[in-house]
């Protein structure tokens, strides 16, 4: 099963648990993620860029799988088929002044 960008997934339909917080660090709700999918964000990477879920203190270690499952259910696709977010340095939160203070080059 592949993801077709031009497929019509229908409109966003509100659900009773839409106010459930999924990404605690950035306070992103399930409803916002579902809405984003309907707006054309079809994987964790894209949803993260739009909503910042997974860009907070824990860097998605808590919510990435939850987000993935929500997107998959919304698209009616198996979750493992969806693209993950890209892994980039810094892997742990680092203040900019520290990150800019490079040693040992």
């Amino acid at each position, binding site marked *: 099963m592949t993801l077709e960008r031009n497929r019509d997934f229908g409109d966003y339909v509100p659900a009773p*648990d839409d106010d*459930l*917080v*999924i990404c*605690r660090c950035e306070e992103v709700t*399930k409803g916002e993620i579902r809405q984003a999918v309907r707006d054309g964000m079809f994987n964790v990477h894209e949803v993260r860029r739009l909503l910042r879920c997974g860009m907070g203190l824990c*860097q998605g*270690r*808590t*919510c990435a*799988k*939850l987000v*993935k*499952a929500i997107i998959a259910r919304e698209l009616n696709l198996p*979750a*493992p088929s969806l693209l*993950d977010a*890209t*892994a*980039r*340095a*810094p*892997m*742990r939160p*680092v203040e900019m*002044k*520290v*990150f800019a*203070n*490079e*040693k*040992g*080059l």
Partner: protein
Amino acid sequence: MKRYDLIVVGAGPAGLSAASEAASLGLGVAVFDENAKPGGQLFKQIHKFFGSKEHKAKMRGTAIGAELLDEAQRLGVEVFLNSPVVGLYDNREVLVRQGDAVQHYKGDGVIVATGANENILAFEGWTLPGVMGAGAAQTMMNINRVMPGKNILMLGSGNVGLVVGFQLLQAGSKLAAVVDAAPYIGGYGVHAAKIARTGVPFFLSHTIVKAEGIDRVTGAVIAQVDEKWNVIPGTEKSFEVDTICVAVGLSSSVELLKMAGCEMKKDGLGVIPIIDDDGETSVWGVFAAGDVSGIEEASAAMIEGRLSGLAAAGKLGFVGPEALKNRKEELLSALEGLRDGMFAPKNRGKSQDSTSEGLPVSKCLLANGFLDDSETFSYPGVKSVPGLHPVIECTQNIPCNPCQDACPKGCIKVEGKIIALPVFDEKSKCSGCGLCVASCSGQAIFLVNEDLGDGKAAVTIPYELLPLPAKGAVGTALGRSGAPLCPAVVTEVKLIGAFDHTALMTFTVPSKFAMTARFWKNEVPA
């Protein structure tokens, strides 16, 4: 740029083992860990480990951690703490946050042993204080000595949920229930049994509906699910709890490997690196060892670490082909021993119908956490004979055999592979030393004298709760399900060094309860 022969990321069981193996072969090794203390999760594993001697079986995780640290120190491994690795770049360049700077290092080889992080569930109220990962609860109580809560609901019946559940009981918390959406208990039956016999109920095919509370957890509602995991209305059950522990699996912490460009493969909802039997990834000189390469027990992680450390030494010319080959075979065979049986990675998710001996696996154990009293005699460790004898309630193929080595009289045999069920040889004479009882990491061995001559029986159980009762204390004997059976008087409490903190408590009950009484509670029946 500071260069090391080998850089290891993570000072847990895999990382420390890798570092020591490599250092013993002459490599200059640096280990970076983000935590203030080394050992990864080992120092919170206060329970005895499974396996055989070569896997450090029957040692507690804390002792294994201390031993690994000693070894690394002795071999000159440099361990840097409070040093999170924040990047892994081309040609094994490692970026580490240290103090107010990010430091660049270069490793001729790099072993990533970053472990795993806990999965979570999102349900109504999951962001309330009091909902936490089971691993977090374990860190609180065993590392920081803080009680996570007084009344706990455990979500997840895998080994993490079961082990942490029992440790919560040891810490003095009450466990309201163990809940799992699957129809069968995921972890070792022996781990479930030691919780069940204290009276904790298991709710399989159940999920959490919500956590209740305004500013903290004050309760939880669970409900039964159908085959498609949908909640069946009307099956809700409420619990008054202040803490909900979530133990629904672990995810490999693969970010550094992804960043380094290692080829990955799907693993559930996440990914794990594609590795060879040395743990080397698709990127030259970059290895993955331990949970980061797929979730297993710490015992396996330690061997994986050694394999990677050895392979790195070979690759960099520190060890000749012959020595490399011999050591690798030794390590692979140890790993193979652990990766066998019903809970091996290759058998994950498969239904457990019968043991390798052809005996049916107890459905009652899988669904409720305890053996049905009528089933026990179908296993080779349980026999009814005159006089004192061990009763080994070990009914699943788990890689473990310390009981065999513990018995000085040859009463217990684990024949062939270490996953075989222990056999009680009724022709041997049990001396009642109790070493088998204390050696069983699953607390599944009991000593029973079914007839003391006065219509009473003596039952000796492994007991790891405090306070230890005094001799003469009158309490209640509980059955395997935790149901109260009868009043029981404690006749002996024995704790010697060789038992390693597992006390052996003996109580007397009427003979008819000899083969059913398996726990003792400090409560007199009403």
